[in-house]
């Protein structure tokens, strides 16, 4: 391993959003030498974009119980979520939120001084009876407040941040154990080996595989790409949440909290169409359901606008005071990206890709689990994942709003605890690095440097985004997805021949973008193949030719293996930790 510098830590965390920083805090406070790598400054991670809130059954505004939260999450997941993980998350939620409050997070409060809770889509009291106010928020900048709170605590705990570093590949030894990562320091262009007793991926989602996405440009699924290349399967990648209310034409998100505060959806005829589809919850039905209803309105010719290609989100009946006080950012977004003032006019909206339910397979302890022989879930020693990049699976086929921030802090902390335990009990000293641990990463970079007559990164990325948008969007059918599988394979071949003109070492953004595309394409291929294979409709995966959920054949998680692009399946965890199993029933609202 000549020429490649090495650094040693107890724990290496890739990604400095909510999950990565929550885990890092746990590790640093336990006295472990912890490094956090981030492509951008930590407080510029995409967690900053979460506006709506974080759910917990605190019962501050209305009576609430974690069992009700669990029921909503299982139902929301369309029975693809693992019920042990869901119980763990919902039961832990109140303590996780109160902990954030103690860390100094500035939550909105009710007059008594307790945390204010707002209603949010899919959250109900008494097992689906009526909407409940469960979302804790810091105005409409909850994600921002969370990141700043966790960053400051980490600085205090002496977490070592490697800012503007991009992880390249996972290092596994001959036993398959994870012993570190390779990473690129952007400022020098040098590749390093980071040797660790335990590694956590908290790299966020790969939303940029779609052309219409609410995700920031940094969301390139780097952890997924690294796993796919290292032989770790990707779970449930066919499940992507389409946020119902992206601003038509821009992709910018209008939080679901808008409907919680009383905003309603209208079709081109001015009809409040959600009353037809979901008589009880109406506009507060879960996201996938609302998205499909919106798409149906458009498909059946009841869209709004001159092309009848979107629906309308009406707020003006709430009055300027509520809009300005409770939803200040939303008015700005509408004016800027849609050119309308919601105090006077409705906002044009359309379902837009928002969240990746699938990802790196883990259990509720944050341990990465892969099939081995007859056992569908065997721990990969030394490897952990949390947050959007991971699939625990609490969101199953569809995530409830405000469960994502909760996922970050609950599983960030639990993964951190698992790593501490693993390091203390099982790996008190570093396991040796394999020979030439950096060779694979160096060869990928060398390929890029030496490529001639290749493809432009932008062209390949656009082709990928168009294919995924068209073939793996809100509506899916057999013919379309079969075409998608063929097309994405062609794009993946092109991605192997990307070239860059700028060969400089320092701050070479063209090289970084090419390396990001290597990661995106793995997520895109996994998405397309897993979607094509699933012959049912469940949660966010809505299949036109198989419109019913098929529990007999398809209540199982998909696992995509990159090396030969095959799929395997493993059972959903039907055994909660302490309570009774919540058996499947049809999702109606």
């Amino acid at each position: 391993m000549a020429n490649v510098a090495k650094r040693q830590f107890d724990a290496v965390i890739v990604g400095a959003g909510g999950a990565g920083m929550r885990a890092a805090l746990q590790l640093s406070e336990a006295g472990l030498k912890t490094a956090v790598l981030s492509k951008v400054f930590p407080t510029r991670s995409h967690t900053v974009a979460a506006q709506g809130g974080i759910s917990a059954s605190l019962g501050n505004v209305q009576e609430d119980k974690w069992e009700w939260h669990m029921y909503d999450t299982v139902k929301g997941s369309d029975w693809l979520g693992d019920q042990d993980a869901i119980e763990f998350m919902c039961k832990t939620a109140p303590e996780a939120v109160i902990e954030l409050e103690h860390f100094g997070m500035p939550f909105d409060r009710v007059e008594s001084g307790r945390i204010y809770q707002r209603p949010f889509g899919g959250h109900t009291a008494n097992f689906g009876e009526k909407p409940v106010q469960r979302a804790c928020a810091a105005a409409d900048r909850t994600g921002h407040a969370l990141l700043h709170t966790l960053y400051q605590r980490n600085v205090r705990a002496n977490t070592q941040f490697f800012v503007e570093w991009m992880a390249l590949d996972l290092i596994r030894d001959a036993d398959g154990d994870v012993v570190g990562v390779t990473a690129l320091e952007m400022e020098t262009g040098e590749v390093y080996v980071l040797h660790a007793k335990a590694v956590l991926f908290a790299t966020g989602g790969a939303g940029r595989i779609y052309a219409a996405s609410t995700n920031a440009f940094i969301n390139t699924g780097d952890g997924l790409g690294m796993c796919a290349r290292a032989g770790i399967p990707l779970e449930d990648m066919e499940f992507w949440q389409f946020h119902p209310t992206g601003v038509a034409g821009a992709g910018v998100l209008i939080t679901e909290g808008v409907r919680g505060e009383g905003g309603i959806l209208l079709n081109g005829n001015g009809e409040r169409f959600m009353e037809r589809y979901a008589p009880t919850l109406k506009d507060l039905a879960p996201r996938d359901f609302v998205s499909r209803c919106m798409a149906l309105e458009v498909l059946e010719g009841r869209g709004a606008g001159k092309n009848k290609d979107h629906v309308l989100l009406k707020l003006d009946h709430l009055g300027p005071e509520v809009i300005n006080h409770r939803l200040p950012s939303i008015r700005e977004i509408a004016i800027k990206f849609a050119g309308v003032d919601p105090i006077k006019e409705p906002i044009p909206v359309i379902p837009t890709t928002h969240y990746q339910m699938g990802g790196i397979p883990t259990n509720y302890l944050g341990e990465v689990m892969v099939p081995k022989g007859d056992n569908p879930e065997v721990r990969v020693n030394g490897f952990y994942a949390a947050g959007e990049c991971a699939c625990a699976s609490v969101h199953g086929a569809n995530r409830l709003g405000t469960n994502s921030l909760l996922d970050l802090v609950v599983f960030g902390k639990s993964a951190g605890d698992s790593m501490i335990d693993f390091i203390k009990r099982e790996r008190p000293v570093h396991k040796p690095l394999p020979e030439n641990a950096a060779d694979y990463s160096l060869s990928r970079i060398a390929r890029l440097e030496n490529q001639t007559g290749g493809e432009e990164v932008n062209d390949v990325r656009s082709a990928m985004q168009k294919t995924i948008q068209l073939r793996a969007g809100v509506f899916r059918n057999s013919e379309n997805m079969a075409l998608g599988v063929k097309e994405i394979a062609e794009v993946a071949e092109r991605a192997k021949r990307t070239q860059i003109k700028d060969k400089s070492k320092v701050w070479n953004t063209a090289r970084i973008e090419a390396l990001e595309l290597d990661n995106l394409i793995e997520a895109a291929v996994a998405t397309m193949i897993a979607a094509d294979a699933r012959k049912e409709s469940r949660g966010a995966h809505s299949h036109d030719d198989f419109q019913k959920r098929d529990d007999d054949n398809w209540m199982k998680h998909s696992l995509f293996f990159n090396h030969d692009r095959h799929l395997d399946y493993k059972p959903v965890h039907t055994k909660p930790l302490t309570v009774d199993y919540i058996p499947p029933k049809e999702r109606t609202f």
Partner: protein
Amino acid sequence: MTYTQADKNRLRWRSRRGLLELDLVFELFLEHDFDQLTPAELDVYQDLLMLPDIDLLELVDGKTDTTDDRLVPILTRLRHWQVAKKQ
């Protein structure tokens, strides 16, 4: 200070933010305006990029105004690249 190509590339990378709303604006700014900036303007741009995303978005949105006169010309250019105007 003087800016090498590497320095400029660093600023290009730091224009990648946590919010899509900012990415969309900066993408157009980098494409059309960035290479014309003088070293003095690049100094200002560098400072601007140090702001937290939410504060930066409020400035770019024109929701808040800055008391720092140096930032005004760059903010004016950024505000020009609003997505709605592109369409």
